[in-house]
């Protein structure tokens, strides 16, 4: 599997959309994809230069992709902080408010696969909620702990200011140790990565298995 931003020579791909703001998801996805070695499968991710925290509003574009761009397989990534209580209910409600008809919902541990229809178009939407609770930095903190044996204090993660502090702390630790997220992922075994980035890897594995 690979993360691409061009489709030259690629016929089958999954478009990645995000409801997150500044967050190294592209870097994490890119390096996790390398661990899933099926070279034919491609995640197509072309993010805007400045990303906005839009949360579930990122789903507003779902009807556009099949209609205008002939894209029917979409991966939606969002931090847990954008979910109030129940991801499944909130995502479904949001999709239905956009006129999308839900056909089937498959719960895959921390991820959702939603088979749905927008007008005449069939869509498969893979929803990945990041962070066990709040945001991807929780998972990054676990990766850092695993490699560098440094515990990032996550006690303020439910506060906006606290999340900023955690993001900065992660950057600071990586800088001080001369490490990059890329290096840490590359040097981590696949099984451990599946534990740490549980929801992302669940979807990547599922995609790998699909014909």
């Amino acid at each position, binding site marked *: 599997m690979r993360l691409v931003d061009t489709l030259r020579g690629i016929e089958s791909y999954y478009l990645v959309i*995000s*409801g*997150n703001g500044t967050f190294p998801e592209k870097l994490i996805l890119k390096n996790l994809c390398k661990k899933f070695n099926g070279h034919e499968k491609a995640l197509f991710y072309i*993010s805007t230069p400045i990303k906005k925290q839009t949360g579930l509003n990122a789903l*507003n574009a779902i009807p*556009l992709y099949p209609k205008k*761009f*002939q894209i029917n397989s979409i991966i939606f990534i969002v931090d847990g902080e954008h979910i109030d209580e129940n991801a499944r209910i909130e995502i479904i409600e949001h999709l239905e408010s956009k006129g999308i008809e839900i056909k089937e919902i498959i719960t895959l541990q921390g991820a959702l696969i939603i088979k749905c229809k927008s007008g005449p178009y069939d869509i498969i939407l893979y929803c990945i909620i990041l962070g066990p609770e709040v945001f991807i930095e929780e998972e990054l903190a676990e990766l850092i702990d695993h490699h560098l044996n440094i515990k990032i204090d996550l006690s303020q993660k439910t506060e906006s200011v606290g999340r900023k502090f955690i993001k900065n702390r992660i950057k600071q630790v990586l800088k001080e140790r001369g490490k990059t997220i890329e290096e840490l992922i590359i040097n981590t075994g696949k099984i451990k990565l599946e534990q740490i980035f549980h929801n992302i890897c669940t979807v990547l594995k599922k995609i790998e298995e699909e014909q």
Partner: protein
Amino acid sequence: MFVRNLNITEFRGIKACNKPLKFSNFTILIGKNNAGKSSVLEALSLLPDTEIIDYITNRSKIENLRSLHQGSLKDLLYLYAGSSNLQFGIESSTAIIKITENGPATSWDKKHGSIGTEISRIFSIPYNKLSEMVLYVPFNTTIIREIEYRMRSLKELLMKKGYHIKLANFLNECVNDVYSELVFLEPISLRKIYPDNKVYLQLKDLGTGAEKLIKIMALFEVLNPKLIIIDDFEAGFHPTMIKLFLRWLKEKKWQTIISTHSIDVLYYLVDIKPADTSILQLNKSNEDILSHEVLTLDELEDLLEANTDPRLLLDALRL
């Protein structure tokens, strides 16, 4: 709206369109380099007629294009031979401009004759005022410089309507300097206010973006054209200037057609929301067939909310 649609055959780098381009009152052309954006704008620049004098350059519209490409009329023809055919939808009629290396010929609703005369009649604009009807600003610093000559001829109108002050005030919102007014010295200058002094800065010394902004705003304000065309809209503009200029354009009644590579322009459009806006993503195949996809402003907003870059998406998909 002045021009509703355009179909191009064998003009510049475009062999044909797979379907006519439909314009809104505010139309933004996007697409990678050599996708045909400038060719589309150049085709539009020939309106209201090829022999009408281009207000900015004081050359005929057709001569203006030839001059822009520093060559002969053959340079306007696809692969430098044959003939170009430009078909415009204007009101409920069809205007056609056919260009060969011998010169242009025009027809209106299949009758050979001047399209300028018909446009003058339909829009109740005196024929001698047609040169003010369509203003085309290419990505060309020489032409921006040439506007100064035209500004000078509009001095009385600019001052009578207070634009010499309004434009200075507008510029103040885009830059850190404080200007009080445009002054028609030789060359045209801006009066800059220091705490204990005043100096006159020549427009040409403002920097490309500010110079371009002031000059084209001055022309547009006074002439109040039916259609303005700006190639590489954002060239030289800081995002603040882009935002304020778009906001200013939104309030105008004329039709606006611009090209851009800038994501800032797209973000600000979503914020500003001009009425009747569409984004045309152009793509030219290796066979030089121009295709396009239309995005509404709402669709653009949805894509940006999904953190998807529409410029790259459409390009990657080659739609």
